[in-house]
C-alpha cells in the first residue's frame, strides 16, 4: 500500500492502511500524504480507551487515484487531553475538531473556533467520554421533572 510505503510503517487492516504514529509525527505525515494524492480528508474520529487511559485520534484520508484509504492513528493522554490543531492543512478538520472538543473535551491548540457545536450551554462532563453515564444522567435530568396534570378535558 502506498501510504505504508510512504510513511515506512503501518499495517493493513480489512483492506485499509492502519498507521500508528507518534503525536509529533502526525503533522508531517498528513502533509506528506496530502502531497502524494491523499487529497480527500474523510474524517477525524476519536475513541475513548478508558481502561488504557488514553484517547485515540484517527485521521482518515483517501486517495482518489490509488483508491486507497489510510487511517493515521495517534494516542494522547486522557488526563491531559491537548492536541495540535490540523485545520490549516484541510479546512474541514476545523469542524471535526470542534465536535471532538465538545464530545470528549480534547483541546486543540491553534483552532480558533472551539465554540459550542452540537450542544448548547452544556455544563456537564463531555458526553461521549466512557465515564459519562447516560442512563444515570437521564434519570437525574429528565425523569425527575414532574408531569402537570390538569383537570378533565384540559387537554392531555
Amino acid at each position: 500500500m502506498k501510504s505504508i510505503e510512504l510513511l515506512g510503517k503501518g499495517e493493513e487492516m480489512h483492506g485499509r492502511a492502519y498507521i500508528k504514529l507518534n503525536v509529533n509525527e502526525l503533522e508531517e505525515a498528513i502533509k506528506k500524504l496530502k502531497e502524494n494524492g491523499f487529497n480527500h480528508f474523510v474524517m477525524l474520529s476519536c475513541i475513548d480507551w478508558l481502561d488504557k487511559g488514553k484517547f485515540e485520534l484517527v485521521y482518515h484520508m483517501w486517495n482518489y487515484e490509488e483508491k486507497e484509504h489510510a487511517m493515521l492513528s495517534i494516542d494522547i493522554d486522557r488526563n491531559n487531553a491537548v492536541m495540535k490543531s490540523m485545520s490549516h492543512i484541510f479546512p474541514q478538520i476545523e469542524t471535526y475538531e470542534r465536535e471532538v472538543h465538545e464530545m470528549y473535551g480534547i483541546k486543540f491548540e491553534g483552532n480558533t473556533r472551539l465554540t459550542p457545536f452540537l450542544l448548547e450551554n452544556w455544563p456537564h462532563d463531555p458526553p461521549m467520554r466512557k465515564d459519562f453515564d447516560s442512563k444515570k444522567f437521564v434519570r437525574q435530568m429528565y425523569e425527575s421533572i414532574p408531569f402537570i396534570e390538569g383537570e378533565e378535558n384540559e387537554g392531555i
Partner: protein
Amino acid sequence: MGLHNGDKMMRYEEWSKLARKASKKSLWMVHFCTGCGAVEMPPVMTSRYDAERFGITSMATPRQADVLLITGYLTVKTLRRVIQVYEQMQSPKYVIAFGSCTINGGMYWDSYNTIKHLEKYIPVDLYIAGCMPRPEGIINAFIKLMKLIDEGKARGWEKYQKYYDRYKENQRRVFNFEIKEEQKEEKNEEH
C-alpha cells in the same frame, strides 16, 4: 340584569361555537421540522394524500398558524425554539405530537440530549403513536383534532395559561444551564 347577562353568555357561546366550526375546518400548521417525522409531512401535504382537502396548509411563521406539529423527538436545544414558537402562536392553538419519542422517549430513552415526555413542557392536545406514523395516521389525527375542537375539548392552550408557572418551572429545570453558568461565574470571581 341576570337575564341580560345570560343572553350575552348565550350569544357568546353561539359565537364561539361558530368560531370553532370555522377553526376546525381551517387548520394551519407551522412549517417546523423538529425531528424525523417531518419526512412524512411532504407526502401528507402533496398529491398522494393531499391534506389540503381538509383545509390543512403549512404556514411560514408561527404568528399565522394554529397547529404546532412536533414531528418526533425533541432535543433540549430544539425545545427552546419550540417553546418560543408555541408562545408566538396566537390562541386558540393546538399541539399534535408525533411518534413514540414524544410520548416517552421512544428508542432514545437513554439519550442524554432528548427530552423524554413532551407534555411536561408544553401541553399536548393529541398524540400519534408509531415510529414514524404513517400519512394516514397523521390525517386521522387531524380529523380527530377537528372533532376535539368541535366538542371544545382541545384546550391545551388554556391549560398552558392556567399552569403557566408550573410549565415555566419545568422548562427552567431542563434548561437549568443558565443557573449553573451563573454559579460557575461566581466561583470564578471567588477564585
